[in-house]
């Protein structure tokens, strides 16, 4: 596979160049010095321990969401509900933390408040995930759509919550809850940064899914995605599969909600989900539904944000929105490179897949090494329609 390697490097190289050129052009367009910008990008990620911490902090929620999406995506169930699940998880977590704290007259030990947070968070996320699961199983309601809509409802619920039963006593512009009790906060991991113990949780989850990959359940899901009838013989009925996978992703997102509240913001904010849901989806696919790949992708994604802000700081005059632009461009670039890492995997591919490998949905989430995923994602997009009873 020498040739392939060379081509990969050529591609990677040209993508990097392309990205830099575009970014540089945009900065020049704003009348600033591109090289300063690139410096800023690097500094934004690395210059101070605080910034390194920020990268980690940002990677945690994205990573957990992405990891817990693995089963659903593998089974070809396409949930975009993480946003809403994070929100409700966060609300439930904050609620239960305040409740426990009150019951114990403000003297609750950390461990108890953490439990309250985790339990509340996962419960909230789970509920938000089981609703679309139920609708999908009972009436074949397309889960892409139901989860999407539920996100908006969750947002409305959060807005109301922050104005009413969880509103902070003192007057604030952005709606927000009162500060959580000190004891509820996740202990800091690296002093002088916002990095917290939640980071270790990512490692745990990643390892868990590394082991899970070789498990029976994983096989069942893979079969389910492409050969439902055979899956029946393996005990993977539709309802069982949908409920279980959605539950996993829901709990994951819910816990993220808690982490964001207790680990990062110390209070419930309107921005608690902050697009993590969608980033998580992107990262899960970037990482090819493989734990290691996902963790790397999550780090990259978070570094993007930090770096882009850094670039803007460095260039000064350039409007803040350059950050978003750079993120977009880099994400596209990496999507190409990531795809190429796995593309060679289709050399001995099935007739089905080769004749249709040019079909985007298929070539979509072809993960490093392992086969099944192409079906998975076809399952995703084509079957989503049928499962949604759309024809």
């Amino acid at each position, binding site marked *: 596979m020498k040739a392939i390697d060379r081509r990969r490097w050529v591609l990677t190289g040209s993508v990097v160049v392309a990205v830099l050129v575009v970014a540089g052009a945009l900065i020049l367009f704003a009348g600033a010095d591109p090289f300063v910008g690139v410096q800023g990008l690097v500094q934004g990620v690395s210059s101070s321990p605080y910034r390194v911490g920020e990268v980690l902090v940002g990677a945690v929620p994205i990573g957990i969401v992405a990891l817990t999406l693995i089963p659903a995506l593998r089974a070809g169930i396409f949930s975009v509900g993480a946003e809403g699940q994070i929100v409700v998880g966060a609300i439930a977590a904050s609620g239960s933390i305040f409740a426990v704290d009150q019951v114990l007259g403000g003297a609750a030990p950390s461990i108890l408040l953490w439990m309250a947070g985790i339990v509340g968070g996962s419960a909230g996320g789970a509920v938000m995930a089981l609703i679309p699961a139920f609708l999908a199983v009972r009436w074949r*309601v397309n889960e892409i*759509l139901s989860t999407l*809509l539920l996100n908006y409802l969750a947002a409305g619920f959060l807005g109301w919550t922050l104005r*009413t039963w969880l509103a902070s006593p003192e007057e604030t512009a952005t709606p927000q809850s009162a500060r959580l009790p000190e004891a509820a906060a996740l202990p800091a991991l690296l002093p002088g940064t916002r990095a917290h113990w939640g980071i270790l949780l990512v490692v745990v989850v990643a390892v868990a899914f590394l082991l899970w990959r070789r498990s029976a359940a994983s096989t069942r899901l893979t079969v389910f995605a492409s050969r439902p009838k055979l899956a029946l013989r393996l005990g993977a009925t539709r309802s069982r599969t949908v409920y279980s996978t959605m539950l996993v992703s829901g709990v994951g997102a819910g816990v993220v909600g808690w982490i964001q509240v207790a680990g990062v913001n110390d209070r419930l904010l309107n921005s608690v989900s902050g697009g993590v849901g969608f980033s998580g*989806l992107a990262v899960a696919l970037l990482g090819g539904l493989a734990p290691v790949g996902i963790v790397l992708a999550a780090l990259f994604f978070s570094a993007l944000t930090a770096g882009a802000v850094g670039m803007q700081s460095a260039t000064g005059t350039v*409007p803040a929105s350059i950050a978003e632009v750079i993120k*977009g461009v880099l994400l596209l670039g990496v999507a190409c490179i*990531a795809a190429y890492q796995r593309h060679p995997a289709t050399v001995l591919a099935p007739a089905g897949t080769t004749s249709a490998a040019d*079909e985007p949905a298929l070539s979509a989430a072809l993960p490093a090494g392992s086969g099944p995923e192409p079906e998975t994602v076809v399952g995703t997009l*084509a079957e989503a329609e049928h499962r949604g009873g759309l024809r």
Partner: protein
Amino acid sequence: MSVELWVAIIAGTLVLATPLVFAGIGEGFVERAGRINLGIEGMMIMGAFVGVWAGSLGGPLIGLVAGTAVGLLMAAGMNLVVYRLHANEIVVGLGVTMLGLGLSTYFYQLWIPSGETNVTVQTVPRSGFGPLADIPIVGPILFGQSPLVYLAGVLLVAAWAVSRFTRFGLAVQAVGTDPASAALRGVRVQKTGASALLIGGALAGLGGAVITVGTIGSFTPDITAGRGYIVLAIVIMGRSRPVGIALGALLFAFLQSFALLSQSTALTLPSEVYQSIPYLVTLAVLVITSRSQLRRLYRTTRATRAIRPAVETKGEAT
């Protein structure tokens, strides 16, 4: 609620629905072709910005054309990255949205530096039905609309005709549901998928331009306010069929319009409740339609009880 209010709500419905219909029809093709364009939001906002910018130079029509063009361009880029470089379509879509939101704000801020008054362009002039528009109630609703509303209607019929009466229409459906067989039949899977996305992109761009050049007359950051995602929802709910999409768009727009205006009446609920109504009801409708769908399937299954094996007659012949 007064008659005026209802008239206002209906009129508002049509205005709010128009961009959704444009973008929706496009995405309809994309999803029937088995693809999904999560870049819609990005394409719409770019269409909205470029529309105003070009409109300020060459008038509303140029604005609309430019908006369409930029959507088309972004779609072409997406095709390149997805097909040639085999990048994951969903990731790319999210990237495109990020890029669109960023770029539109970026260029806007460079175009209108702080201290300068925002640029307004002349919006598409109202259609000249003159007297007709003065008919009470029906007048403003049917004849008082911007020409774009009627254009949406025309496009709707066109889209329906294309998917029903052209080989392209069949090919889109084929590659969408069974790419492997379609390819084996001799359909060019990539070509079809690419064309579908080009249509989707162009119409998404147009949809964005319709918001700014069609109604508002100027651009402000994030003016599309998540309509791209709503379009995705509507398309799935409308089963990717033009008519379904139109109905979905109208339903959603009506609910939004209703939620806005009924606030100005006596009954007072938390504003969040009003803002949630459109999504809540859409979900409810979705459940109902899916349910009846399921029922229908069940009934047809029963029906096949009647069917006898096809070659029975031959059987007697031998």
